[in-house]
Each structure stands twice: as structure tokens, then as C-alpha cells.
């Protein structure tokens, strides 16, 4: 009888072994996982392989592959397709660049605001109500978030609150936030930061509460001020939770679709297009199944490093969430 513990990441702690009685029922285990494995195989893994195959071909509107083009779809994406990546201008533009903008701005602001609110809220009596207010948008559909902010951004200062403030408060002309190529991305990013900050806040707040009070008390006794306590004690201890939040937000950016589809449809022109909205348009407007598949593969390639990080984290934590 082998006493070897299940290897690696997902096994139980080494040294503990399953009693004999567990071992004779292996076939039953396979039965229990069979429905899940079949569904995942047929509806996730098998299509995933097919999407890769599709990305090397062109399809007709019925999504049959009509001819093989090798890497041409990928070449087109990164060289001639100005919607996806326009390198003629400097700085470059296009869906891929917009995703990068999102990855930097949306991730930074959601994380920073979430951290700020978590740290400040811990010092006041109305912490729980404040956190509920910040967190509520997480529950709402991105579709509803988009409608809420479409209304805020409405150009008419008698309808949209943003322009009412600009007009009434600063006597400025209304800005068509969603209708201008130079504002649309920042406007939508701001709206989505509003929706996602609650997530960062909840994770970081929970982590803050996990820091033993004695450490902070000791530092205070030694004469540390509030800033030092944050900078030297809390901030370093939050590095893992912040990394977790950053990865989650970045995955969100790569999959980003709903809020842009509803608010701007990638417009005006293609100025707010992102990878997922372009993929959708190639498939449903242009009927280009092969080309859309190549875009999907790019999305997968962007997600893979984050997936590996996530899995290695489960390994090191021996997975008890």
C-alpha cells in the first residue's frame, strides 16, 4: 500500500494518507466527476481547441471554414488592422492600446481608491454603512452601470449631473463625454472604477483587519505616527492582497465587454473599442469567424500568465480559501 501523499498543489497536506477503505472506490469517484468532465470537455475544452483551429482559417457566414490562411489572421491583426492596433500615429491607438490604457488606469485607480477607503473607513464609526455604499455597485449588472453613467454624462446640463456641475459650478460649456474620441475612454474608465472599487476595498479591508492589533500598538508606543504605521506596517503586509486584487482587475480588463458595448459600442469611430468588443463585431457584424477566433486566441494568451499566477498561488496556499 503506497503511503505517498497526493502530489503538489491540490493534494492534502503531505504525510496524511487516506485509509484503505477510501481506495477501493476509485471507479465511483470517476462517476461523480463524469458529468462535470463531460460538460467541460464538450463545451469548454473542445471549443477552445476548435477556436485555435478556426483562427488559422476564413469562414463563411455559416461559420464553415472555407479556406486555410495560416498565420494571416494574426498578421492582419498586428499589422494592417487599424482598429485593433494602429501604429501609424504616435502614441499608437486601437483596441489593444485601449485595453492597455484600461489595464493601467482602471487597475491603478480601483486599487488606490479601494485601499484609501479601506484604510480611512477603519478609523470611523460609520465604517459598515460606508463600505456598503461603496460596495453596492459590485452587485449591479455592468449593463445597469452603463445606463447609470450614460445618464450622468448626458450633455444637456438639465439632465446629466456631470455637465450640470461643469455648467452651474464652473460656467463651462457642456462636454459630450461619450461622444468625443478624446474623452470617451476616460469617461468609461471612471464609470467602471466606480463599479469596481468596492471589490478592492472589501478585500483590502479584510486583510487590514487581519493585522494583529498588538503590532500597531507597539509601533505607536515607540512613537510611530499614523503615516508611518500605514507605510511601514500595513502597506507591506497588504502586498499579497493587493496583488490578488490587481490580477482580478487585470483579468476583468482583458474580458471587458458589457460596459463599453452599452455605453459607446466602441465609438465614436473606433476610439473606445477594446479586444472583446472588436471580437464581437468581427463575428456578428462582419461574419468573420476565423478572424474573430484569432482575436479570441489573443485574449487567451493575455490571460494565461495571470492564470499561471493564480494557480501557483493556490499551490503555495494549499488552497483553503
Amino acid at each position, binding site marked *: 500500500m503506497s503511503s505517498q501523499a497526493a502530489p503538489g498543489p491540490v493534494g492534502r497536506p503531505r504525510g496524511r494518507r487516506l485509509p484503505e477503505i477510501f481506495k477501493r472506490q476509485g471507479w465511483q469517484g470517476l462517476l*461523480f466527476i463524469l458529468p462535470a468532465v463531460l460538460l467541460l470537455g464538450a463545451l469548454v475544452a473542445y471549443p477552445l481547441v476548435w477556436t485555435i483551429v478556426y483562427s488559422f482559417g476564413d469562414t463563411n457566414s455559416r461559420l464553415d471554414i472555407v479556406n486555410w490562411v495560416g498565420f494571416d489572421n494574426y498578421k492582419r491583426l498586428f499589422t494592417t488592422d487599424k482598429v485593433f492596433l494602429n501604429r501609424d500615429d504616435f502614441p499608437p491607438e486601437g483596441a489593444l492600446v485601449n485595453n492597455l490604457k484600461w489595464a493601467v488606469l482602471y487597475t491603478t485607480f480601483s486599487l488606490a481608491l479601494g485601499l484609501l477607503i479601506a484604510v480611512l473607513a477603519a478609523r470611523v464609526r460609520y465604517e459598515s454603512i460606508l463600505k456598503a455604499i461603496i460596495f453596492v455597485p459590485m452587485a449591479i449588472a455592468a449593463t445597469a452601470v452603463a445606463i447609470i453613467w450614460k445618464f450622468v454624462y448626458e450633455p444637456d446640463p438639465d439632465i446629466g449631473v456631470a455637465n450640470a456641475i461643469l455648467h452651474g459650478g464652473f460656467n463651462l460649456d457642456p462636454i459630450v463625454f461619450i461622444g468625443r474620441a478624446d474623452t470617451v475612454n476616460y469617461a468609461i474608465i471612471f464609470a467602471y472604477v466606480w463599479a469596481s472599487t468596492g471589490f478592492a476595498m472589501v478585500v483590502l479591508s479584510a486583510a487590514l483587519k487581519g493585522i494583529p492589533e498588538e503590532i500597531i500598538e507597539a509601533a505607536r508606543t515607540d512613537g510611530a505616527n499614523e503615516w508611518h504605521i500605514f507605510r511601514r506596517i500595513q502597506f507591506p503586509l497588504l502586498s499579497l492582497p493587493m496583488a490578488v486584487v490587481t490580477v482580478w482587475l487585470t483579468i476583468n480588463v482583458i474580458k471587458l465587454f458589457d460596459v463599453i458595448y452599452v455605453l459607446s459600442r466602441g465609438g465614436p469611430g473606433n476610439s473606445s473599442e477594446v479586444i472583446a468588443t472588436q471580437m464581437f463585431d468581427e463575428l456578428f457584424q462582419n461574419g468573420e469567424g476565423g478572424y474573430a477566433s484569432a482575436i479570441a486566441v489573443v485574449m487567451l494568451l493575455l490571460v494565461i500568465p495571470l492564470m499561471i499566477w493564480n494557480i501557483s498561488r493556490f499551490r503555495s496556499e494549499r488552497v483553503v480559501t
Partner: protein
Amino acid sequence: MSAATEAVGRPPTTVSGRLVRFIARTPVHLGLLAIAVIWLVPTVGLAITSFRPRDDIHATGWWTSFTDFSFTLHNYDLVLENAKMGSSFVNSIMITVPSTLLPLTIGAAAAYAFSWIRFPFRDTIFLMIVALMVVPIQMALVPLLRLFRDLGIADWYVGIWLAHTAFGLPLAVFLLRNFFITLPRDLIEAARVDGASNVRIFLRVVLPLSVPALASYAIFQFLWVWNDLLMALIFITDSDLFPMTKRITEMQGTYGAEYHLLASGAFLLMIVPLIVFFALQRYFVQGLLAGSVK
């Protein structure tokens, strides 16, 4: 409670000490107040707008109605009947309930095996399932569209049920397995020694002890599907079957700036998640945190 939330420093005991402390904290209070206002205003604005008559909406800002408010439910009448949000509400339920229960039950069964039955390649298979967790739905769209068409299930809910189930399963397996392995080993061994079958142990021992984890996942998946737009855009083509997200998106195109319809429609879409949030906040936050790997 107050001592714990106060968190910083020992509370001053004198009146002047408290006063100094309060004044020193004023910037913090003002900052948090500003943040709370920014977070509330957009949603409150839309909520108020949904109860204002159409002409008022286009004449004056919703903030003027704090002093001069005329209330109507007419927008909701219109959006439920004419804009078909009523039937879309039912459609959303039709889509969401099976898309939650299927991955919950199938995932729980698999998670049980991954925690308490030993079989070849168990941990390898589990790891592969975990790896599928972050695969973007886009990676399956084109083949799934074809598959559902070839199977003749593209015209009803079956396709979207299957797609949501498959893409919700990795998280279910991952989450539930992590909970199941924390159950006391003695309990399950005792049941086995008494001759209980795996099915019996799963149904009578493991599931009843795992209600919090099952609830967390169910809430997460329910909201995920309820709030989903992408899958609905792709797999629901019959206009009579549109869920609310897709209906509102379509209204957005046709009715443009008809805010009396958009606002009330968006509120109908938000109402279920808001109820779930306030009623089950603890499970909700747990599910969300646990689902943060997705």
C-alpha cells in the same frame, strides 16, 4: 464594537481631548463624505428619474425634484408592458435558475469526489479544471454557436443554460472542493465504517454541512448569470426570449435618450441583485471574494 472600529489609538478621556481628536479627524470625515456622495449620486439620480414624468425629466435636472417632486409610476407601466420588460423579467428567471442549479449540483458532486474519493489522476484532473476557470468565454463562442445550431438547440434556452453551466463549473468545483476538504475526516470515516455509500455520504453528510459554501456559490453564479449580457447577446436570438440585460441594451439603441424608459428599465434589472445584496450580504461578499479568481 466602537473600540474595535475606532482602531487607532486609545480614545481620549477628557472633553477637550475628544474635541481635539474630532477636529484633527475632520479632513478624514470630509473626504469620506465626499466619497460617499460620489458613490451614491449616480444611482440615486437614476432612481429618482425613474419616478419622474417624462416631460419633467427633459425640462429640469433630477436634483431639482428634492424641492419640487411629482411622482409617477407611469414609466414602469410603459417599460413593463410596451417595452416588454415584464416578460424579460420572467425570461431572466428562466435563464438564471437552471444556469445556477445545474453547475451547483454537478459541481458539488465532482467536488465531493475530488475531496473524499481516491481515484487515478485525481489531482491532475482537478488542476486542469481549475485552469479552465479563467478561460474567456470568447474562446468558445464560434464553435459553440455552430454546435448549438447543428444540434438544433439554438432557438431556446438550452444553449445558454449549457454555456453558463460549463463556464460556471470550474469555480463551483474549486470553491466547493476547498470547503469539503475542511469537513471533519472522522465524520466521513465513521459513516463509511457504518456502511454508508458515497451517494449517501454526499447527500446526508457533506451537503448539509456545506450550506454556507453552497449558498456563496449559488449567489455568485445567480448574480453572474442575471447580470450577464454577452452570452445573452450571442445565444438568445428570439426577441420573445430576451433577458433584461439584452432588452435594455436593445432599448438603448431604439429609444436613445428616453430616460423615463431607460431609468425604470435599469432599475428593474437592478432590483433583484440589490435585494440579494441586502438580504444575504454575508454570503454575497464571501461568494464574491471566493469568486475573485474567475
